[in-house]
């Protein structure tokens, strides 16, 4: 049977009509005429009649793009919750072919000329450095053609991708705004629509940086623009999961207004993209009882290792010994698993030992950002690698933590 075909069937001695949805070895799912799906064991159901060819999804009428304004914005979809819809029959997530239906739901949309390009279709946990290069190149193409860029991206690794593009673009002519949704866009309560609304507005500013636009709080009123290198997903499920860590957000969008909360780099005249990455970098989380050999095996052949140490940036004495053995060949950098606050290796003897072992403290750089930054610098600035790691390039090091 085909999904969508009408069927007549018998279940536990009663006859029913419905639409066939799916079946596997054990069970069959049918949509009844009242709209409910029921799932029953195959041994309990007898199909008596099948007709029709399966019904295709009818597309909803969309606003005409031609009506829209002069601000060119290109939405690049990469997959993830926001740019995808669920196929209710198979449960699979598919990219939305034509996202223009979204236009119906976004305020103030008529000021923009939107275009759309599907550049990938993956859940963001599968995004990797190779994908970042692709995203960056596609973004450059669009900016070269006078577009601001919004990237629909799964929220799981959005912060890593935003960091990657932040570093890879040395200069950019337009804003690049990552956005996503924590509630899928197939539900009325989705945060996608307001996140998109905010993103579109941010995309018309002169911010020459890579940002992440997501809900500020769990209400639908404010959308925050976070600096790509300073944002972290801090909650598994809330709309407001994304937080700028140890710094101010770039801006907040509220009811067609943008309020800037911190300084930002303005758009430049050219798009300068360094699209090389060296992914021979490890990010490793220290914990009591971690095995020296596990640590050694993970790091010995790497070009750079980002350690998420405890507190101000510490690891056990035995790990320090291992680091000392390797630090001629491997660059070690220290961040903290505390997430908030800076590392400081001057305060305790462990820190001073780490400094002696050539471990470089990265102050308040996020561990995830440090990992991406190392990939970027190793590939493009190998000669001044360590020095540039310690230097603030895109706002990833904030020398003033205010709270």
């Amino acid at each position, binding site marked *: 049977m085909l999904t969508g075909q009408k069927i007549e069937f018998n279940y536990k001695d009663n006859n029913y009509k419905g639409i066939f949805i799916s079946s596997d070895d054990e069970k069959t799912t049918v949509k009844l005429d009242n*709209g409910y799906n029921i799932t029953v064991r195959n041994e309990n159901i007898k199909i008596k009649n099948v007709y029709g060819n399966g019904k295709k999804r009818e597309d*909803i009428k969309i606003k005409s793009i031609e009506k829209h304004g002069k601000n060119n914005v290109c939405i690049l979809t990469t997959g993830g919750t926001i740019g995808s819809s669920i196929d*209710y029959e198979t449960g699979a997530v598919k990219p939305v072919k034509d996202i223009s239906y979204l236009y119906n739901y976004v305020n103030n949309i008529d000021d923009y000329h939107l275009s759309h390009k599907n550049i990938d279709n993956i859940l963001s946990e599968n995004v990797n450095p190779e994908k970042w290069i692709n995203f960056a190149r596609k973004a450059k193409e669009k900016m070269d053609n006078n577009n601001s860029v919004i990237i629909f991206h799964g929220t799981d690794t959005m912060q890593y991708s935003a960091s990657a593009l932040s570093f890879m673009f040395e200069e950019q002519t337009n804003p690049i705004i990552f956005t996503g949704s924590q509630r899928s866009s197939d539900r009325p309560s989705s945060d996608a629509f307001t996140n998109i609304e905010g993103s579109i507005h941010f995309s018309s500013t002169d911010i020459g940086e890579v940002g992440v636009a997501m809900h500020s709080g769990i209400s639908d009123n404010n959308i925050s623009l976070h600096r790509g290198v300073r944002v972290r997903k801090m909650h598994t499920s809330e709309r407001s999961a994304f937080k700028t860590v140890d710094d101010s957000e770039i801006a907040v969008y509220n009811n067609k207004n943008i309020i800037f909360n911190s300084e930002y780099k303005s758009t430049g005249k050219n798009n300068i993209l360094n699209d090389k990455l060296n992914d021979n970098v490890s990010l490793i989380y220290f914990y009591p009882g971690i095995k020296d050999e596990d640590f050694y095996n993970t790091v010995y052949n790497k070009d750079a290792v980002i350690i998420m140490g405890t507190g101000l940036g510490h690891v056990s004495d035995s790990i320090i010994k291992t680091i000392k053995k390797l630090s001629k060949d491997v660059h070690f950098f220290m961040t903290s698993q505390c997430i908030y606050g800076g590392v400081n290796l001057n305060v305790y003897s462990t820190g001073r030992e780490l400094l002696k072992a050539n471990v470089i403290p990265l102050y308040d750089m996020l561990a995830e950002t440090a990992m991406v930054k190392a990939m970027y610098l190793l590939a493009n600035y190998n000669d001044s690698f360590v020095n540039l790691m310690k230097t603030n390039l895109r706002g990833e090091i904030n020398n003033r933590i205010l709270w």
Partner: protein
Amino acid sequence: MVIDMKIGLEIHFQLKGNKLFCSCSTEGEKTDFIIERKMTPVMSELGKIDNAVKYEQMRDRTFVYYSSDNSCLVEKDEEPPHDVDYEALKTAVVLSMALHCKIVDYVSFMRKIVIDGSNTSGFQRTGVIGMDGYIKTSKGNVRISAVTLEEDAARKIREDIDRAEYSLDRLGIPLVEISTEPDIIDQEHALETAKAIGYLVMSTYKFRGEVDSIRQDVNFSMGYGRVEIKGVSRLSFIRDTIDYEVTRQMSLKEISDILKIKGSEISDFNDITYLFKNTESSMIKKAIKTGKSVFSAMITNVNHLMKYGNYHLGKEFADVARNMGIGGMMHSDEFPGYGISDDELNSVYKLLSRGDNDSIIIVLTYKNNIGALAGLLRLRLNKIINMDLAETRAATEKGETKYLRPLPGRERMYPETDIPLFEINKSLLDEANNLIPETMEEAKLNLNNKYKLSTVESDAVINNSLYSTFVKLIKIYNEPKTVARLLLQTVPELEKKYNSKIGNENLIKILNIAKNNGWDRSNIEKALEIFTVKKININELIKMDELKSLSDEEIREIINKLIINNSINEKNIIPSFKKETNSTFNAKKVIEMYKKLKNTH
């Protein structure tokens, strides 16, 4: 006139314990923490937007939710639902069995789109548990189309034109919905069916049993389309509501017959505020002062139909307007009135070129709000002329009905992918099988035979849904007659007299005290009255002078007195003892003490 009515019921029962998809309790109160949300209409799996959903979209309201101490991130739509609550699911299976339904092998929860804000997610989660059962009634079996298990909606606190406020305390409470086929033949039958179903549910130990725990929807048709009447609040209103709807539809049929011949059209609305610059109508003056404008439109050929017979056409239009947040529609059948002068009326009539058969309607509202009204009124007029009255209506507190929204379709249902299929396996079925409640007939037999209640008493217990309470109380205080009287008479009378709920739990506590202190019926009634009036802690009751039990010393004194008078034996000691005192006492203790003391004399 015999009307061929088709009536179906959908009855919703709240279950107590935990919420359906999280670990919050069903009991709790709202807090002051609020969130604000918008709802966006989305497509179903078949790519359509439901009519009811489109209607809400047009209203474009902001929704405010007050958090409650019994809500977590799940109710805030900030976390995926957890696994379905096993106890609630089991109760739904029990009820499906009691109603002779086929039980599904797996529960697939669906999302039913509702964007009036009553669900933070924009949908209600609901799953079929049983199908195709029946319930016996005096007028034959009424078929049960489905038993579903769903989450209750948020509790509406207030709403106005661009904003609705809800509390999250009720959101997510498990709700068993039992819907019948339209096998019910009249008002009385509907009432009987509702009672029979309600009886079954209330007999399960998971029934929540608070105010508002039962909500009844009536599906009604008499040939002019199906009307779904939401929220009939009390059993007895089922009858009133159907009566009202019959009257309404019959009246509209007469109007339809007239208008089909004459035809009728509705003009656009004109801003006629300037005509009322010097009006003496306080209502209009006040509206203009608050920034509203006066709008008017003409409906041709409905003069004297707006106020016609038992039901008024004007009400149909006013309902549509009120639903848009525009209250107080006036029409020319009511003029002169509202303090509007003849001059003003004439200038309105002149402006709109009103003919003798035409009616003028006037509304007072803000300019922003008038947009969609004329279109909606035309839709309504056409529905009436064509007598396609299918729609969702709301039951009112007066037993009437009012327009709510278009009927939803199956487009608003799609699978809840966040919740895995739940298999109803044999162990669950066995568990459930042991919990099927007695039917009403079985219960009546029990009351008559086991507890020796009269037929009148038995019927009263059953009809007032007091059977399970009765059984529970008997286990504490084994005096069936007394307990029946307390439930049927004492408690309702006290509650009415003092306008204060006593509550089953308090009744149980008092009966426990009564048992331990040898109280009789009059003591209990006294205690109940004191408790109701003074609202003291129940444990304080035994310390009240009126209810204080005799101390051992006092009992001994009285017995000694009785023994000395030589008039007593083991059989008459208690009545004799009672005559000697107004205080309460433990009869067992009196007998024991008497046995000891009689030997010492």
